[in-house]
């Protein structure tokens, strides 16, 4: 057992307290049982395995009122992503590339800066990662159409060759290609198709609060209630092989 196991378990229990009554606790229990260890510890170990100066693609951003405006983004996701990027730079001097809707880039940049991370172009981020002089990250927009999303997935992964990919508070599509919110409403308009990049990069992936679309792919109609198949799907996304560079 890891020296950190008891601390990891306490952290896991803390952040899985379902104060919003969203049914997360059964998902946690199933994931924890399959992983055989605390999930935050598994994720931390994965993130710390990347080489010093390695590349992390981080994505967040939920245009949760997409039917009104793609500029209306949710406040769950950005601060967590910023905290992780800060930690990745401090621990591994990682070159972090945050992929998000173009419409959400301004608030995301402000959140990163408030967390101590400068938003710079990729050249500066790489340079800062190499010489360790400044916590920097690069924001890039991702297309919002299916066709462009597929092409962008291939191009982005070929260009950046990430050592790890992290997704927090992003939705995925269901089997019919729709992005549903937890109330079963299609909110895919103006939404970046970043989920298309993840099946192409199975090496090292950390996903937070699993995407409703992926869960709904296994449980029709769209539901808000934990389901045995959903719990299994959630668990299966936890332990992933780490890319050895």
């Amino acid at each position, binding site marked *: 057992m890891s020296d*950190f196991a008891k*601390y*990891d378990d*306490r*952290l*896991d229990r*803390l*952040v*899985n307290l*379902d*104060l*919003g009554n*969203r049914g*997360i606790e059964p998902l*946690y229990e199933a*994931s924890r049982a399959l992983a055989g260890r*605390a*999930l*935050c*510890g598994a*994720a*931390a*170990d994965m*993130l*710390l395995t990347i080489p010093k100066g390695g590349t992390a693609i981080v994505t*967040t951003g939920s245009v*949760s*009122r997409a039917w009104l405006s793609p*500029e*209306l*983004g*949710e*406040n*769950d*996701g*950005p*601060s*967590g*992503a*910023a*905290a*992780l990027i*800060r*930690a990745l730079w*401090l*621990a591994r001097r990682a070159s972090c590339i945050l992929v998000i809707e173009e419409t959400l880039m301004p*608030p995301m940049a*402000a*959140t990163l800066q*408030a*967390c101590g991370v400068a938003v710079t172009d990729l050249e500066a981020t790489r340079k800062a990662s190499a010489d360790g002089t400044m916590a920097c990250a690069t924001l890039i927009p991702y297309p919002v159409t299916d066709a462009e999303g597929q092409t962008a997935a291939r191009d982005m992964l070929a260009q950046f060759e990430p050592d790890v990919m992290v997704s*927090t*508070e992003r939705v995925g599509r269901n089997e019919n290609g729709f992005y549903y919110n937890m109330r079963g409403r299609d909110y895919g308009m103006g939404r970046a198709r970043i989920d298309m990049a993840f099946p192409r990069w199975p090496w090292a992936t*950390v*996903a*937070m*609060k*699993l995407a409703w679309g992926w869960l709904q792919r296994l449980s029709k109609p769209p539901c808000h209630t934990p389901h045995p198949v959903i719990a299994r799907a*959630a668990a299966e996304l*936890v332990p992933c092989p780490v890319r050895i560079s």
Partner: protein
Amino acid sequence: MTAAVSNWGCTAICAAMALRTGDKRLIHTPEMEARLLEVMTANGLINSADGLIDPHVDGIKDTTHIALAEMALAITRKALL
């Protein structure tokens, strides 16, 4: 990684990274959480559960999110002394 709020999952991972590296700077502190909640509100990000631009997240009060960061910090404190 499951979490009741996605931001909380990140807080837990940052704490677990701090434990492993022995570097307290990696912890997402309550002070930082409070600052980010303010900045996100000032920049128009929304509390989706309530449909308002405010510092509460997923319908859970801002003070709870700050307290959660404090609890995560407290959990790691013994190991990082």
